[in-house]
C-alpha cells in the first residue's frame, strides 16, 4: 500500500494553531476511534483566533483555487451516519487562488462566536465543534484539515432551585416520602436528601438511587430514545420499618455527566433522572423516577446551599 499512500499523500501539511494554546485549558475528549485526546476548551462568545500554516512538501508546489477556514458546529446522528447538520457555520477566506511554493502562514479570527450548544458525545448523537481548512483545487480534489475543539458553557447557579419532595406508594403496601434537596444540580454537586418510610408492608431487601440519562434523538416517528444508567448507588441495606428515615448523600463528581440538554436544535435532547429503586425479597422492583437538571456551574461562583 505504500505506493498508494505515496500517491495520495497530500502534497502539503496544514497546521492549525490557536494563539492562546499555551494558556488555554485543555480537556480530554474521546474521539470516534475510542482514543482520548486533549483538546482546547472554549465557551460561547469567545474569540477564536490563531494561525494556519500551509507547507508544501519540499520540491512541490500547491496550486489552489482559494483557501478558507470554517468554524462549524455540527450535529451527527449515528443512524444517519455521514450526514452532518451544521447549526453554526462561519467562514473566513484566507487566500485567493494561486500557488504556494513554500510555507505560508495565515492568521484567522472568529470574534465573539455564538456557540450555544456544548460539545456532546452520546450514544446516538454527537455534537462537535471543528475548524475546517479547505484548500480548493480543481481536478485533484480539495485538501482538507480539521481541528476539533471543545465547547462548554457555564451557567450561574439557578435563581430558583426548589427541592423535590414527593410522597409515593402502593396502597396498603408501601408509602414513602422522599426528598432531594434541589431540582438542579451542577456537575460536581452533591445530592442530599432522605427517604422517609410511612408504611412498610413488604420486606424490602435494599434500595438504590440511580442516575439515568435519557438521550432522545430525531423527531416524530424517527425518535430514538436511549436510556443509560450512569450510577447505581446503594442507599439502604435491609428492611426498614415504619418511621425510619434514610439519608441520601450522593456525590456527582465520580460520574461522567453532562449538563441537561433541552431540545438541541430540534435534533436531540439529553435529560437526567434520579431513579429511586426499592427491591423486595422476591426481587420485585419498585421505583420512582424524577427528572433533575444538570448544569455546568461557573467556576468560582458559589452555590447557595
Amino acid at each position: 500500500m505504500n505506493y498508494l499512500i505515496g500517491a495520495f499523500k497530500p502534497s502539503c501539511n496544514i497546521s492549525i494553531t490557536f494563539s492562546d494554546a499555551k494558556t488555554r485549558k485543555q480537556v480530554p475528549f474521546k474521539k470516534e476511534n475510542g482514543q482520548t485526546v486533549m483538546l482546547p476548551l472554549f465557551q460561547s462568545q469567545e474569540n477564536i483566533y490563531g494561525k494556519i500554516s500551509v507547507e508544501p512538501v519540499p520540491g512541490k508546489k500547491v496550486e489552489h483555487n482559494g483557501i478558507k477556514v470554517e468554524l462549524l458546529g455540527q450535529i451527527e446522528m449515528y443512524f444517519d451516519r455521514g450526514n452532518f447538520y451544521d447549526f453554526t457555520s462561519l467562514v473566513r477566506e484566507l487566500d485567493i487562488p494561486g500557488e504556494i511554493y513554500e510555507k505560508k502562514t495565515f492568521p484567522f479570527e472568529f470574534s465573539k462566536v455564538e456557540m450555544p450548544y456544548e460539545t456532546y458525545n452520546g450514544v446516538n448523537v454527537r455534537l462537535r465543534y471543528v475548524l475546517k481548512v479547505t484548500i480548493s483545487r480543481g481536478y485533484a480534489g480539495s485538501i482538507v484539515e480539521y481541528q476539533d475543539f471543545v465547547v462548554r458553557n457555564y451557567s450561574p447557579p439557578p435563581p430558583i432551585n426548589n427541592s423535590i419532595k414527593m410522597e409515593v406508594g402502593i396502597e396498603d403496601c408501601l408509602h414513602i416520602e422522599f426528598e432531594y434537596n434541589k431540582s438542579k444540580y451542577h456537575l460536581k454537586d452533591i445530592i442530599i436528601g432522605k427517604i422517609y418510610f410511612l408504611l412498610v408492608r413488604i420486606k424490602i431487601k435494599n434500595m438504590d438511587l440511580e442516575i439515568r440519562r435519557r438521550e432522545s434523538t430525531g423527531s416524530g416517528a424517527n425518535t430514538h430514545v436511549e436510556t443509560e444508567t450512569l450510577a447505581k448507588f446503594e442507599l439502604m441495606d435491609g428492611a426498614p420499618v415504619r418511621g425510619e428515615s434514610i439519608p441520601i448523600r450522593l456525590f456527582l463528581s465520580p460520574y461522567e455527566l453532562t449538563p441537561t440538554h433541552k431540545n438541541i436544535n430540534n435534533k436531540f435532547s439529553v435529560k437526567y433522572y434520579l431513579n429511586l429503586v426499592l427491591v423486595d425479597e422476591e426481587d420485585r422492583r419498585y421505583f420512582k423516577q424524577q427528572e433533575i437538571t444538570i448544569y455546568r456551574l461557573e467556576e468560582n461562583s458559589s452555590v447557595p446551599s
Partner: protein
Amino acid sequence: MVVANKTTGQSSSVRPNRLESSDQLRSLSLSLSLSLRSIRIPRPYTMPSRRRTLLKVIILGDSGVGKTSLMNQYPSMRDHGESYTQFCFLLYVNKKFSNQYKATIGADFLTKEVQFEDRLFTLQIWDTAGQERFQSLGVAFYRGADCCVLVYDVNSMKSFDNLNNWREEFLIQASPSDPENFPFVVIGNKIDVDGGNSRVVSEKKARAWCASKGNIPYFETSAKEGINVEEAFQCIAKNAVKSGEEDEIYLPDVIDVATVGQTRSSGCEC
C-alpha cells in the same frame, strides 16, 4: 427536612492525585510474596509495613479486679522525651479514678501510642467483660493478640485462682502459633486497699505461679494510686513488640497477574 452536610458540602478542592503507582514496585513485592508462602519470617526479611507497628493487647481477669481502671490509668504517650513525665502527670490529674464498680460490656479497646527503641507503636489495649453474661458474642477479638495481660485482685483469692482458667481459655480461643512462648503479663491489682491489710494473695504465691507458667512477668499495681501501672504497661508493650515481630503473612491461592493489572486499570469502585 434536608440532611445537613456541613462537613463535606463545601469541598471543592482537588482530590489527592495518587491514582498512578509504580508498577515496578508492585511486581517486586508480588514476586517476593510468591516465594514466601505463608511462612513465618522474622522482621528483617519482611517488606516494610505499617501493620507491624500495631500491637494488640488483651486484658483478662475476673469481674471487679480493675481491668478497666488499669486501662484508663495508663497514660498515652504522644509526647515523649523530657516532657513525658509532665504529660503523664497531667493525665493522672485529669482522669479521675472511680472507686466504684462499673461493669464492662463486651470488649472495649483504647489505643495508646508508645515509643520503644526509637520506634513508635500503636498499642491496642482490649478491656474485656469479666462477667460472662456480658460476653455474649464470644471472644473472636482474641485473635491476633500480641500479648495477654492477666489481672487479679490481691484481695481476692478467687480472682487469683481463676488466672489459670483465663490463661487456658485464652490459649484455646486465641490459638497462638506458639502457645508455650506466648507472652503473658500478670498484674496483681488493688494493693492499696485497706493499706494492704485485706490482702489475701501473697506476692510470693503469685510469683511462684508466674514462675511455674514459664516465668510470666509479674507486677503489683494500684490503678487507684497509679502505682506501677506505667512499669507494667512498659513491660506489656515490650513483650508485645517482640511477639509482633513474627507474624503470619497471608498469600492468596492464585495470583493472576493479568487480572491484577486489568482491575487496576479499570479504576476503583468508588
